C-alpha cells in the first residue's frame, strides 16, 4: 500500500474534523483504534497524525531551511510556518515544509523472542469493535503486537521526514531485516517484515546488534523495542559496541500489565515461553518477591542505558503509543540539533 494517498485522506479528514469540532486526537493512539484500522499503514498514519496534532510544537520546525512543499495546516503546527501568501490567495491554511538538510538513519529493532508473544489483554478489547482475533487466530493482544505497531509508526514518521528507515526483527538471531532506505518501497518492505511471527527462543541481544552494526556505516539512531527479559551483561556488551560506533539508542521496554502488577490468584503452574520450564507456586506467595525482582531488573536496565547516555522508556500493552513516539521525536530532534551544532 502506498503511504501518500492514505496520508492525504487522513489529513483531509483530520482537517475537516478540526474545522467542525476538534476531536481528541489522542484517541487515535489507543491500541484499539490502531487495531480497528486493520493495517500497519493506517495504524502508523493515525498514530503519527495523532501525535503531531497533539503537540504544540511541530517536529518539523526549523529542521531545514530549504523549502520542499506545502501541506495542510493541522492544529499544533507552528504558526510561523504558515504560508500567509497562500492563505491570502486561496483562503486555505497551508504550512510550508522544508527540505531536510541532514539525514538521520533510523533502524528499528523489534524483539520477536518467545517472551514477546505474551499478553493478557484480549484482542477484542485492544481492537475495540474490530476483530475478535488476530489473523493467525490469537485472541490476546501481545507485546509483539504492540511492538510492531510502534515500529510501524516510527518508520512511518521517519519515512515521511524523508529519512532513511530500516527494520530488524530479531530473537536469538535476526529473523527479518529491511535495509535502510527512504525509497517508496521501503514502507511496504517494513510492513511485510513486521508481519512475521514470534519464535520460541530467547533474546540474543548482542548477536542481533553485532549483525546490525555490520550493515550500518554512517551514524544512525537505533530504536530497540523489547521487553528486555534478557541478561543485562549481554545488553551492556552490545550497547558498548553501539556507543563505540557513535550510534544513538533509544529503547522502549514493553511489558504486559500482568507482568507489572502480577495480580494472579489462581495457583495454576506457570510455564515459561522461552523454555524455562514449569513452576508450580502460589502466585500470591511469590508476588512480592517477583515484583522486587522485576523492579530491580528494570532499575538496572535503566541505569545501564543511562550509563551510555541512552534513553529507555517503559510502557505497557494497555498504554497508548503517544509517549514513546513523542519521546522518539524529542530524542531525534535533540540529536539533530546536536549534530547540527556539533
Amino acid at each position, binding site marked *: 500500500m502506498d503511504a501518500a494517498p492514505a496520508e492525504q485522506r487522513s489529513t483531509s479528514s483530520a482537517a475537516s474534523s478540526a474545522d467542525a469540532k476538534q476531536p481528541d486526537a489522542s484517541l487515535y493512539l489507543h491500541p484499539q483504534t490502531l487495531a480497528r484500522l486493520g493495517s500497519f499503514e493506517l495504524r502508523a498514519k493515525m498514530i503519527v497524525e495523532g501525535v503531531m496534532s497533539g503537540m504544540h510544537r511541530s517536529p518539523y520546525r526549523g529542521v531545514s531551511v530549504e523549502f520542499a512543499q506545502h501541506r495542510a495546516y493541522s492544529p499544533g503546527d507552528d504558526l510561523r510556518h504558515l504560508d500567509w501568501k497562500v492563505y491570502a490567495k486561496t483562503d486555505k491554511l497551508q504550512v510550508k515544509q522544508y527540505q531536510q538538510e541532514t539525514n538521520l538513519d533510523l533502524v528499528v529493532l523489534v524483539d520477536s523472542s518467545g517472551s514477546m508473544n*505474551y499478553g493478557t489483554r484480549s484482542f477484542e478489547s485492544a481492537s475495540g469493535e474490530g476483530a475478535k482475533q488476530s489473523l493467525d487466530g490469537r485472541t490476546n493482544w501481545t507485546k509483539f503486537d504492540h511492538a510492531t505497531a510502534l515500529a510501524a509508526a516510527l518508520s512511518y514518521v521517519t519515512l515521511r521526514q524523508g529519512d532513511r528507515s530500516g527494520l530488524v526483527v530479531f530473537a536469538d538471531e535476526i529473523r527479518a531485516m529491511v535495509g535502510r532506505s527512504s525509497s517508496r518501497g521501503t514502507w511496504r518492505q517494513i510492513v511485510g517484515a513486521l508481519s512475521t511471527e514470534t519464535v520460541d527462543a530467547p533474546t540474543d541481544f548482542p548477536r542481533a546488534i553485532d549483525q546490525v552494526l555490520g550493515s550500518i556505516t554512517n551514524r544512525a539512531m537505533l530504536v530497540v523495542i523489547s521487553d528486555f527479559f534478557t541478561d543485562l551483561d549481554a545488553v551492556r556488551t552490545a550497547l558498548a559496541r553501539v556507543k563505540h560506533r557513535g550510534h544513538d539508542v533509544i529503547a522502549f521496554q514493553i511489558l504486559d500489565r500482568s507482568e507489572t502488577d502480577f495480580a494472579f490468584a489462581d*495457583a495454576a503452574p506457570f510455564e515459561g515461553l522461552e523454555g524455562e520450564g514449569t513452576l508450580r507456586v*502460589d502466585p500470591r506467595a511469590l508476588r512480592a*518477591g*517477583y515484583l522486587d525482582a*522485576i523492579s530491580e531488573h*528494570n532499575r538496572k536496565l535503566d541505569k545501564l542505558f543511562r550509563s551510555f547516555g541512552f534513553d529507555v522508556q*517503559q510502557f505497557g500493552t494497555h498504554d497508548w503509543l503517544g509517549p514513546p513516539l513523542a519521546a522518539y521525536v524529542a530524542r531525534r530532534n535533540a540529536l539533530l540539533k546536536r549534530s547540527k551544532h556539533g
Partner: protein
Amino acid sequence: MSFLNPILLGAGLAAVAIPILIHILMRRRRKPMKFAAMRFLIEAYKKQRRRMQLEQLILLALRCLLIALAALAIGRPLLGEGALGGAGPRTVVLVLDNSLTSRVATADGSTELDRSKAVAATVLDSLDVGRGDRAALILAGGPADPVVTPASTDLAAVGRLITNAQPTDSRANWPEAIAAATAAVEGATTQDDAGATRATVVLLSGFRSGSITDADSLAALAQDGAVSLSAITPAGAAAGNAWIQLVEPVRRVQITGPGASVRQVRVVVGRDEGSSAAAATATVTLRLREPGETETPTGDARVTRARVSFEPGDRVAAVTLALPRLDEIRRDGALLVEAAVESTDLQNTITADDTQLAAIELKRELRVGVVARARFGRRVGVNDFEPADWVRAALRPTPELSAGIEPVDLDPASLDAPRLAQLDAVVVLRPDLVNAGSWARLATFVRAGKPLIIAPPAAKGANTWPDALAEAIDTDLAVARDITEPPAPERLATEFTIEDSSPLALLQGELPALAGAVRVFQRLDLDSSESVRPLLVTETGSPIAAQITPPSSRGTITLFTTAIDPTWSELAAKPLFVPLMQELVRSGVGASTSARAATAGDRASTTLLPPRTTEIVRGQRSQRVAPGVTPPLRTAGWWRAVDEESRDQGLLLVRHDPQASETAPNDRDLVTAWLTGAEAQTGPVAVRWLAAEGEPAENTQAAVDTNDRTPWDMPLLALALAVGLAELILARYASHALKGTSATPIQDRAREAARA
C-alpha cells in the same frame, strides 16, 4: 484410650486423607499457564523456595491435624486407667435395687425405683446394638434375681424387663447380686475375644441403710481392672418411715372353748433413725383376716385400735392389743392377724411396710397325752397321788369344768403314731419305760412343733433313758444317771431373768414369788449347753427344768430334772406347778401351728414348709417346692402350702423385712468403703457416681465409661478450633494474601523512584 463412637472416629480419621488428596490432585490436574517473565518468577522462587515449602508442609500438617482432632472429638475419646479396647462391644450389667427402700416416694410422687429405672433406661439408650453391646439385668431385692444373665443383645427386652420390675418387701441381697454380676461379666468376657469387651457394672440403688449393711460380704467385682463400676449417687437424706416391726400373738394357738387363751397380741412399731429424736405417736390397728385367696377383711367389728407412743430417742414402741372373742367367729381353723400403722405423725414414705401379718390357730381344746404306767384302784388323797395324778390335776385343775386342756392317759408301750397325731402335747412321766421306737416317734412329734415334757421316774435307780432320748433327738444331753441328793433341800431361785421367748414369759410377774416356795430334795444333774436352756434353777444354779431344742425341730422339749413326786421335790404340791404346766403346754403348742412364717428375702425351702408340701399357692400363682427347688419369697403376704393331692398343709406367711425399712442415708464415702471392703483383693474401687438426687437421669450417658474416664471431646474440639485458626492465619500469611496484595506494582515503584 477408648472411644464412645469408634465408627465416627474411623470415618473422621479416614477424612484426614482429604487434604492430602486435594494437595496431590491440585498438583496434577491444573493446566499450566503461560507466562513471559518467568526468569523473575524463578528468581523470586529460588529465594523463597525453602520457606514456601516449609509453609506448605506446615499448612498441610495443620489441615491434617485439624481433621484428625475433629475426628478424635467426634469419636469421644476416653482417657484413663484401665482403658480397654476402643472398638469392642460393651457389656453393661445393671444391678437394680428393687428392695423395700426403693419404694421411698419422692416429692414428685415417683419412687426411688422409678428414678433407678430412668437411669437404667438412659444407660441402655447409650448402648449400641450394632456394635454388639449387651446388657444384663439383676434385681437386687432379695433373693437377688438374675433376670437377664448372661448379658443379652436384646436391649429392648432388657428395657421392658426393667420397666416391669416390681419392688419387693425384702432387703437387697447385695452379695448374691454382685456374685451374679460377676458371673455375668465373666460370661461376657469369655464370649468375646480377650480384651475386646468392656464391662461396666451399674448399681442402681439409693444405698439407704435398709438396703445395704456392712455385714454383707461382697464378692470381688473387678478382675484385673477389666470391670468398671458405676452407681447412682447415694440418697442424701432420710426419707422418714414408720413400720410394723413385729406382730406376735401371745398365744398362737387359741382355745375357743372354755378356758380360752389369752387373746393379746403384741405389736411393735419401728421408726427411722432420722426421725427418732422427737416424741411421736402412731395409731395401730389389729384386724382379723380370713386366709382365703382374696384379702377379705372379716369386718370392721373385729378391728381393734391402740395408740403407740415413741419417747424421744426410741426407735421402736410396743403396744399390746386384744383380739376380739374368737369363738364368735369360728371354733377351729386358722385366722390371720394383720397389724397396721393406721396413722402417724411421723413422716411415712413407705406404705408397704405399714402392715404385718401373724397367724393364729383356733382349737376347741388341747389334748395332752400323759405317759405313765396305768394305775388301778381308787385314790383317796394327795398322799396317794402319783406323778400322773399331779400332772392331770395341774392340766385340768377342776375336773368338772373344762379348762381347755384335756389330759389323755397313755401307756408307755402304746406310743404309736396315730395316737400321737391326735395329741397337741405329751408329758412323759415314765421315760424309763419308753422304748427306742417310741422315742423316735416322740422325736418326730417334737419336730412337728409339738411340745414334749419329760420328768424322771420317781423310782430310785440308774437312769439310762436320757441316752435313748439324746439319741432319738440327736442332741448331746449331759444328764447324770445317778440321783443327786443335796445335803440340804434346795429352794428354787427367785431371781432370774426370763426372756421374752421363754415359754414362761407370761409368768414373769408371779414366778419369783411362786418359785421361792419350792424345795428340791433330789434331782438329776444336767449340764447346760447351747441346745439346753434352763427354765428353772435352784439357788445353787442347778437346773430343775430346762428347754431343749433339738436340731431342725420346730417344737421343744421341756426336761424336768426332778420327778413329779413329793419325795423328789415340793414342785408338784406347790401353787407353781399348775401355771407352770399350763404355760408349758399352752405356749409350747404355739410352735405347732400349721402356719409358717418367713421373711421376704427367704426362699420357700422344704425345711421351712410342712413336710408334705410340694407346692405353694397364692391366688392364681403356684410354685413348686421340692428339695433343691426353693421359690423366692420377695413380697409380703401369705401362701397356702399344699401336698401332691392339693390338700391344705397350712399357711406360709411372708412378712416384710423390718430391717429393710430403714431409710437412713449412707454417704458416698461409706458406700465406697462398703464396696471397697468387697474389693479388698483387687485394691480400692473407683466408682463413677451418676445422677445425684434431683439431677435428671439424662446425665448418665457416660455410665458405661470405665472408672473416672470422661470424654475428651470438648477439649479436643477447642484444640481443633485453635488449630483451625492457626491454619487460617498461616494460610493467609503463606499465600501472602495480606502482604502480597499490598506489594507495590512496578509502575508505582518507578514513579516513586523518579520522584525520589
